C-alpha cells in the first residue's frame, strides 16, 4: 500500500456544439438578453499602439469554411503587458486584451479590431515576438484548439521567437504568420486557420 496523491482531475472537455452563440454571443443566435455582450472590444478607447484589423476563416479538412466557429483572442498591450494581476506592468484603462468573435453564418468570415501588441517579456530575459493567442471552439472540436498569430512585418522578432523556434518544421511556422495589407489606410492582417491538410495550422498543447 502507498499513500494516495490527493489531486483532482480536470473536468473533461466536450464540444461547444452548433449553438455556442446562445451562451457566448446571444445576439448572433437571434435574441438580446444581456445589457452587454462580452468580448466585443479588445483594446478599449485609450490603448496606445497601432490600430489594426484581423480577419480570417477557419477551414476544415475538406477545404470548407467553418461557419459556426467561435474564437477568443488574448493579447498584450503595445508595451507587451497583459491585463492580469500577475503582470508587473500596467495597461491602459479599458484595455482588456481579450475578445470573442464568431464567424459569419453564410460565409465563415470573421474579423475584429484591436491594437498591435508589443514584444512580450517572458521573465527569462528573452522576448517573445508580438503575437495574439487564440482559442478555437466549434461543433466537431472536442477540446478547444490553441494557436498563436504572429505578424508578417515582424520578421526580425519572429526569427528569434522562442515559441516559433520550438516548431521543428520551419515551413509549418509560416502557418502562424498573418499577412499584412492595407485597406482604406488601415492595416489588415489576414489569418486563415486550417484544421487539416498540407498547410495545417500549428496548434499547441499549452
Amino acid at each position, binding site marked *: 500500500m502507498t499513500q494516495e496523491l*490527493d*489531486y*483532482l*482531475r*480536470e*473536468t*473533461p*472537455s*466536450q*464540444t461547444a456544439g*452548433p*449553438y455556442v*452563440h*446562445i*451562451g*457566448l454571443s446571444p445576439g448572433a*443566435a*437571434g*435574441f438580446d*438578453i*444581456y445589457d452587454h455582450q*462580452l468580448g466585443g472590444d479588445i483594446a478599449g478607447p485609450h490603448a496606445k499602439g497601432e490600430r489594426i484589423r484581423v480577419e480570417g476563416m477557419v477551414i*476544415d*479538412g*475538406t477545404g470548407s469554411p467553418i461557419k459556426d466557429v467561435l474564437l477568443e483572442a*488574448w493579447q*498584450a498591450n503595445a508595451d507587451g503587458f*497583459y*491585463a*492580469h*494581476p*500577475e*503582470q508587473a506592468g500596467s495597461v491602459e484603462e479599458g484595455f482588456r*486584451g*481579450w475578445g470573442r468573435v464568431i464567424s459569419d453564418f453564410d460565409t465563415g468570415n470573421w474579423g475584429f479590431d484591436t491594437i498591435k501588441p508589443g514584444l*512580450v517579456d*517572458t*521573465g527569462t*530575459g528573452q522576448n*517573445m515576438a508580438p*503575437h495574439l493567442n487564440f482559442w478555437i*471552439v466549434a461543433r*466537431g*472540436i*472536442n*477540446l478547444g484548439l*490553441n494557436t*498563436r498569430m504572429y505578424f508578417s512585418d515582424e520578421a526580425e522578432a519572429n526569427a528569434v521567437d522562442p*515559441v516559433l523556434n*520550438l*516548431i521543428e518544421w520551419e515551413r*509549418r511556422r509560416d502557418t502562424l504568420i498573418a499577412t499584412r495589407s492595407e485597406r482604406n489606410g488601415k492595416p489588415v492582417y489576414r489569418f486563415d486557420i486550417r*484544421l*487539416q491538410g498540407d498547410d*495545417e*495550422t*500549428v*496548434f499547441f*498543447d*499549452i
Partner: protein
Amino acid sequence: MKTDGPFYQRDRTWHPPALSRDYKTSVSRSPKYPLISLETTVSETTGPVFGHGDIAASDNDLLTNYAASGESPIGERIILHGQVLDENRRPVPDTLLELWQANAGGRYRHKKDTYLAPVDPNFGGCGRTLTDANGYYCFRTVKPGAYPWRNWINSWRPAHIHLSIFGTAFAQRLITQLYFEGDPLIDKCPIVQTIPDEKARAQLVARLDLNATIPLDAIAYRFDIVLRGRRSTLFENRQEGN
C-alpha cells in the same frame, strides 16, 4: 518561498481525442499533426479578468432572465450549483461561468435550430455568473429536454447543459457539458462517448442534491468543476547564465 509556476500538463487521455469517428463532425475538424507541446509562458498563465460590472446579478436566473414579468418558463424547475476548484483542490474565486441549454422540450432559442419542439416564449436559455470568494456558483433554470441530432439516423442528445469556464489563465479555458444522473441516453451518446475513460465521463454527470432543493419550489443538482492546477515552484529552474 512558493510561487505559482507553470500549469500541470493537461492529461489528454482524460479528455476526448480530437478525432472520434462516431462523432462524425470531428472527422474533418480534427488536426492530424501532433500538437506542439509548449510549457506555459506568460501568454498562457494570464487570462481575462471579469468583475461584477461585466454582468448583472440576475444573469444567473434563467427562470426570470428572459421571462415576461409574472410568467416563467415551462419545465422542471432546478437549481444547479457547485464549486469550481483546481487540480490542487484550491477554490477558484471570482471566475466567469457561462451556460446555455435547450428548453424543457429540447429546443434551442437559436436561428439555426429547426427542431419541431416549440420555442418557449419565456425562456432564453443562457445565463452567466461569477464564482464567489470560495469558488461556489449557482444557477436557477429548467431541466432541458433531450433532442435529436443528425449524426446517425436516430441520435438523441441526453439532457445536457453547456458550460464555459475561464479560470485565472488562458491555459485553463474550458467548455464542457453536464448531464443528469440517471439519464439512460448518456451511455448511448456519441458525444459523451468521445471521452474514453468511464470515470472521466462520470465526472460530467451532475448529482441530485436533495439537501440543496427548495421544498415545494425547485429540485437541485450539484456539479463541481475542476480546472487545471499549477505547479508550486519549490526550487527555481536555473536559467542559463545563473
